[in-house]
């Protein structure tokens, strides 16, 4: 069986950044396994701009952003295989993969970096009643058809869900000549970035109806109309509020799900909140030497943060190998707990000895908060209290912990992140 130091599952933004960082940290035995026909992942179909403001201080399109990393992978001579599906990751880090040329093969890795990304929640999971005709797409599938394959799904569009891909596709379809009639969002707030609501809906006069959902789909063979209705606080449709839109296309942008089938079968422990692995300060899962980064870990709002996180995963994988592939010391860990408005944190534990001088803890809030405070408690002592004008579920938040600060608090057991009104 072939041996490699680091196998990276997925050649999207997370996998690419992890590979580059691992190589730059001195490891020469890296293999990226990518199922698509090119590196770059979902960025290849994200032809809009707005990527890279944090990383490169300029606005790039998705393919341009991806190419910055692809070029580094090529320049650094990092090995990768395309058209290659990883079929299994065993707890002993034997990776089984398959493609046309090599057939099915196994690789023994010292470290594995999970970078499989996420997928969209399909119609079925939403239990929308009605027919099951052609013309219903997840927003990302429609994005692929329009931007990669060059085909229009339809001319009159209703969108359910205001996730970022749905918002981007509202603009894309409009620019391609379609009429986007309405975007309905079940929740009382949008799941997407504020800038996307402004630039993709408001600028084109596309109405966003919050607290609305689809209650009927018409058309036996192809979508002919969609009915939406307002929902009450219980998220159930309110009778009498139905509005019918004739249309030929229904796009769904109702949430992203980290794609963790491989992680689960490997025995990686999952967070029920993020549907991603539970990781420590090194982005290492409960399986020593298996790291996770990007949207497979938790769904990000900006790719810049994916790259930053993946870089740390790559560096930590090299550190793990250089330190002799030892299990993480779990005797002296500090738990990070998200509560009162903070839904989760990544990571969820810290071993102070292993942490970098600065550690970014990312989280999302569960509701819209105005002029509220992000508070951090070390056990019962509040040590951070930062006011924010607005926080929303669609945008990621962060707090930065200093190693020296944690070292000063001897015997610290628990760090709590919460949202406070004052």
């Amino acid at each position: 069986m072939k041996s490699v130091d680091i196998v990276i599952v997925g050649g999207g933004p997370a996998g690419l950044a992890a590979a580059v960082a691992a190589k730059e940290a001195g490891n020469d035995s890296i293999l990226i396994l990518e199922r698509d026909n090119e590196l770059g992942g979902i960025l290849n179909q994200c032809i809009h701009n707005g990527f890279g403001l944090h990383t490169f201080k300029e606005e790039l399109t998705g393919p341009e952003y991806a190419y910055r990393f692809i070029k580094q992978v090529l320049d650094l001579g990092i090995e990768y295989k395309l058209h290659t599906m990883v079929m299994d990751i065993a707890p002993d880090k034997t990776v089984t993969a398959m493609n046309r040329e090599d057939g099915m093969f196994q690789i023994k890795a010292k470290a594995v970096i999970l970078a499989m990304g996420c997928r969209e929640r399909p119609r079925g999971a939403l239990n929308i009643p009605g027919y099951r005709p052609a013309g219903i797409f997840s927003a990302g599938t429609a994005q692929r058809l329009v931007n990669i394959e060059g085909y229009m799904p339809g001319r009159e569009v209703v969108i359910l869900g205001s996730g970022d891909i749905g918002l981007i596709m509202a603009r894309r379809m409009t620019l391609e000549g379609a009429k986007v009639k309405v975007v309905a969002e079940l929740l009382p707030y949008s799941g997407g970035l504020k800038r996307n609501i402004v630039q993709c809906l408001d600028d084109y006069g596309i109405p966003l109806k919050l607290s609305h959902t689809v209650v009927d789909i018409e058309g036996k063979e192809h979508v002919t109309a969609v009915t939406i209705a307002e929902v009450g606080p219980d998220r159930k449709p309110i009778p009498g509020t139905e509005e019918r839109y004739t249309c030929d296309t229904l796009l769904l942008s109702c949430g992203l799900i980290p794609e963790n089938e491989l992680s689960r079968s490997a025995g990686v422990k999952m967070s029920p909140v993020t549907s991603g692995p539970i990781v420590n300060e090194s982005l290492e899962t409960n399986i020593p030497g298996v790291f996770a980064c990007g949207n497979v870990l938790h769904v990000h709002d900006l790719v810049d943060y994916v790259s930053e996180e993946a870089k740390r995963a790559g560096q930590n994988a090299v550190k793990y190998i250089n330190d002799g592939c030892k299990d993480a010391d779990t005797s002296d860990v500090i738990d990070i707990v998200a509560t009162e408005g903070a839904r989760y944190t990544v990571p969820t534990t810290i071993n102070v000895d292993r942490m970098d001088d600065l550690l970014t803890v990312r989280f999302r809030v569960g509701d819209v908060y105005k002029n509220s405070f992000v508070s951090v408690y070390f056990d019962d002592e509040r040590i951070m209290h930062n006011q924010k004008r607005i926080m929303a579920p669609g945008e990621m938040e962060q707090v930065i912990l200093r190693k020296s600060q944690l070292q000063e608090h001897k015997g610290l057991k628990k760090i709590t992140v919460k949202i406070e009104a004052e």
Partner: protein
Amino acid sequence: MTDVIIIGAGVSGSAVARELSKYDISTCVLEKCEDVCEGTSKANSAIVHAGFDAEEGSLMAKLNVRGNEMMDQLSKDLDIPFKRNGSMVVCVHKDALDGLKELYDRGVANGVKGLKILSREEALEMEPNLSDNVEGALYAPTGGIICPFELTIAMAENANMNGVEFRFNTEVEDIKKGDDGFWHIRTNNGEYVSRYVVNAAGVYADKIHNMVSADKMHIIERRGDYCLLDKEVGGYVSHTIFPQPTKYGKGVLVTPTVHGNLLVGPTAIDIENKEGTATTAMGLNEVTAKASENVKNLPMRNVITSFAGLRAHLERHEFVIEEVKDAPCFIDVAGIESPGLSASPAIGEMVGNMLKEKMGLKEKADWIGTRKGVIKTEGLSIEERNELIKKNPAYGTIVCRCESVTEGEILDAIHRPLGARSLDGVKRRTRAGMGRCQAGFCSPRTMEILHRELGIPYEKITKSGGNSAIVLERTKGEVSMS
């Protein structure tokens, strides 16, 4: 001129076609949709009933038990999955325990083998997720689960291999007895002439019957809504769990599917619409509520899709398989509602025998009763996979990530007898698109394969024929350089 025309390529029509393919006659199946298994046969509980439900002495009872018996050999011959997982009728009210005994007695009278009445404790031991209110259960070890698509497709394919022709997208508009004494069948694709007609048109069997008979038939479309759950919870129950039956049927069941999902449903709502397969919020809510009476804490958050099917219900609730009295040489196969899937091989056998006798049919010497299904790569060893990939590298490319379906399997589904022509055709033959992402990932890839292999332009690739094109047009026209 054909000896026998079968109208409808559902499970009944396909079973009859396979039986008739044994004989030295010409047979042709007319189907209004673009593929087999497009109506009632595609949306049902996917189970093989033991046979204790139907009234003693009824044709339903007889053909159910016979069909159930035939299923082991048939599934081997046709290379399709079938599992006798056993079924349980659960009683949750003490005062209804007599009902179990009644069912037991009926089952014994119908010839169902191995029936047993279980105590509360025995039932819970076999199925720990049954409701806390369970008082007892009727256990039928011969109950089974099957894939209705694969059963129908396999029978049709096998019939086709043995010379039966299939005409898709061919809708019967009128039938007349000609002066020549033969049936003249007008369709949207021209006229067909035949000596015999078998009406296996599902919910349309009344419409077809009424074209030739003064004794009018009326089929009631009885809709059933279902929810299909992720494989992650496919083992939530291991037997098929029924409530006690009512006059509307066998009630909302909870069952594993033969492919490892969990299926919950159906409702029973009478509608007057032969195409009314839309689910309703009320129906889907009822599925959850009713199923929860017998199985506790059902993991309904794992639903991956919901759908509705139509039962072809006749007021008298009995299969009608007979020559129409005022229309000689016209055979009805009508009112085939549950347990129609279970009974289908026996329905085929019965119609085959009827026609054999009437027409004096001779068996072919070269009939082949077996068929190989699409090779499924999931679960194969590395060596087995590499053997396949060596022969055809397409087996090395995964197209559907959720169900782990390779391009090789899709090519096989396209290029076999009665091969797939649409996304749903590929899905029903390979399971590509049937998993938890519901074809979000594989649709564009499958479209590319259909386009390449069959030369269908992208704009003409459909979900399931007719007006169900996936994309409308190119984003931009060809750029002219002049």
